[in-house]
């Protein structure tokens, strides 16, 4: 069976060729999917795994929490819950992940906290000041979701999330991770350079160069999907939820006001109130290993700043959790 103008010899079989190549490719990709599941969800090999496991274990062990902080490394390096609880009289947990997880990771951590802690009253979302300029966080969703088949997702997000699942399962980095780990162990070298210290990942010894100044046009459209999910969850669960920008180097903040005006408009459009219109400025001596990280020695002081900033929301949360009025408002058009 060939086209009339074909020069293909009849001894070669297109059917067998296609069957072998497509079948073998499918088998190899299937094996990679299984390896991805093992490495990403059932091992501590990926860089994000120890922190995710640490925060999930913290949630498992907790009892009687009334406040949770969710967000990324800007939160992990800024809020010390012992100090916060002492200043506010709350029982809180800091469930900070990393920027990789984005708003989607925060959404998933809130869902986990709601399921675990019936007395939860207040949720504080603290994300890096530039989070609204970063690309989508579907990868963070896939890696932290409590459910594979998630009925809570709106229809518009199902196809993008399905693509993100496919991307995670067919990720060649998995191969790299799976091969690299035993080699490093053989060489008696650490598989990862991540150490949990002071309730979060230990900071690097040197400061990374600052990123560019943030401009209003840097705000990524469509970044709101999971913030809207968070706001909706807060309304349904009658939680007081508030958004606070993570701290930012004062040098950058001074030249980025337009960005925060644009970002705040979008954040508030979801119905989440803002604790403050702009990030807490970090003086040079207060900056840790990146522009978004408070130095380790500044964590308690930074917590005090945030506690004061969040005071109206803590007070509004009241002492009768089941009768309170949700602090989240209806979404603005």
């Amino acid at each position, binding site marked *: 069976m060939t086209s009339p103008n074909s020069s293909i010899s009849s001894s070669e079989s*297109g059917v067998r060729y296609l069957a072998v190549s497509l079948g073998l490719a499918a088998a190899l990709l299937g094996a990679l999917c299984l390896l991805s599941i093992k490495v990403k969800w059932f091992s501590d090999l990926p860089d994000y795994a120890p922190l995710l496991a640490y925060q999930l274990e913290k949630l498992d062990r907790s009892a009687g929490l009334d406040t949770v902080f969710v967000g990324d490394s800007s939160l992990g390096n800024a809020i010390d819950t012992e100090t916060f609880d002492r200043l506010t009289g709350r029982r809180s947990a800091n469930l900070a992940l990393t920027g990789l997880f984005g708003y989607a990771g925060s959404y998933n951590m809130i869902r986990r906290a709601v399921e675990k802690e019936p007395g939860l009253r207040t949720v504080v979302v603290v994300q890096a000041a530039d989070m609204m300029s970063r690309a989508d966080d579907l990868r963070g969703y896939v890696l932290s979701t409590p459910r594979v088949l998630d009925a809570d997702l709106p229809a518009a997000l199902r196809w993008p999330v399905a693509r993100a699942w496919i991307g995670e399962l067919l990720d060649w980095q998995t191969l790299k991770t799976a091969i690299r780990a035993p080699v490093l162990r053989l060489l008696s070298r650490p598989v990862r350079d991540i150490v949990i210290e002071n309730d979060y990942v230990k900071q690097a010894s040197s400061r990374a160069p600052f990123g560019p100044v943030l401009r209003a046009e840097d705000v990524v459209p469509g970044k709101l999907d999971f913030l809207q999910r968070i706001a909706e969850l807060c309304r349904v669960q009658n939680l007081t939820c508030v958004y606070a920008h993570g701290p930012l180097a004062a040098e950058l903040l001074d030249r980025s006001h337009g960005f925060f005006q644009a970002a705040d408009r979008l954040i508030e459009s979801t119905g989440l109130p803002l604790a403050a219109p702009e990030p807490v400025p970090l003086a040079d001596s207060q900056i840790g290993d990146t522009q978004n990280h408070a130095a380790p020695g500044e964590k308690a002081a930074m917590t005090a700043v945030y506690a004061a900033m969040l005071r109206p929301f803590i007070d509004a949360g009241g002492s009768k959790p089941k009768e309170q009025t949700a602090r989240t408002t209806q979404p603005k058009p």
Partner: protein
Amino acid sequence: MLFNSPEFLFVFLPITCAFFFVWRWVGLSVLSVPVLLVASVAFYGWWSIEHVPLLLGSILFNFVVGMGLVRRPGRALLALGVGVDLLLLGYFKYAVFTQGVVNDLLAAQWPALSIILPIGISFYTFTQIAFLVDAYHGKVDDKDPLAYALFVTFFPHLIAGPILHHKEMTVQFAALPRMRIGSDDLAVGVTMFAFGLFKKTVLADSLALHASPVFEQAAAGHAPGLFAAWTGTLAYTLQLYFDFSGYSDMAIGLARLFGIRMPENFNSPYKARSIADFWQRWHMTLSRFLRDYLYIPLGGNRRGKARSYVNAFITMLLGGIWHGAGWQFMLWGALHGAYIVVGRLFSDWARPRGIRLPAAVGATLTFLAVILAWVPFRAPDLAAAGSVYVGLVGLNGIGAPSLQAAALIALGLAIVWGLPNSQQILARFRPTLAAVAVAPARGPLLWRLGSAHAVALAVVLVAVVLFANDVSEFIYFQF
């Protein structure tokens, strides 16, 4: 819907193939052309539904004018047809740029036009202008409107070429209902498509990570140092080739799935030994169009040497402008025009004296000239191009080399210089309507439909899937 997107690979293509082959299976081969036509219009509509009427209107207009020219060839009708096509292209593609230039020259404050460029308009306008010119010259025999509509819209080439000639396609479409399409056609089509996908997702997109930052930073005012400028320029040189030739391979492979052969579009262009040779190997269907419908009508070589130089320069300049509305594209076209003129001057001087450049010298000079011309082609504006040029001669400092980028560029150069191209690898199956016979690859690189090459194809497919996580557009979609 990109060829490398899951929507295309797992939804559109299987559905189209299913419809196409089911009708043939039940003996309704006559529906082959309508099925492909509907699929092609749907493919375009997925991109931009609002521009479907423009596409269909353009097809109807050109077909009517073309049939009029077949019946009674006349300059006025030809001028009307070509004029309307060029007006449409000019409005959508050049009005914003022209208005900006006028605003600058007259210091006027006219509000900026907001015109969305219909995707593929440059390609479908050119194919149809060629059709009108051929109709005028009495070279059009086929009068089937469906075959004509499919020739323009056939989804493998609609968005970014190859620029097809009606004569080579309508004959095949007319024969499609009677044509036997075998499993070997499918095997060759899948293999060619996979080669193209590999070039795009594994090679081009990896190189882009080293090319794009250099040009973007140059546009933002950060002048690249020597290493960065060369890294960015070389990486882009290779990225563009793998991206566009990969797209062309995919188009050729897709067409073959339906038993259709397309003209080849690339023939190892970076192995060229002169600029003229380069243009016989790079975007060959555009070169053919520019030669047949611009250079020759301008007079070609028929009016003396001096005039042929001018014609060549004008042709390349207009070829540059066809790529986009911007000074940088004009500079790119002018550079290539100048290269061709210098090449011919040298040839005219050297040949009577028996002087011939050694092949390696010719190839090196050609490659250098080509990569220098890619700088304005890639740069967002002339200032950025200037900044990269300054970096290339080391006047922005030296900087530090990136070993990863160097390794990737070395791999890319080894492929383009050391390996046969897709057509040569699949030469046994005549994958294209090759105008020039290509030398088949030798040894194991000459593909067979056997077990060893089936395993190799599986590896290519796995690599493609693993690298295809972030679907990115093809560079030539913007033109």
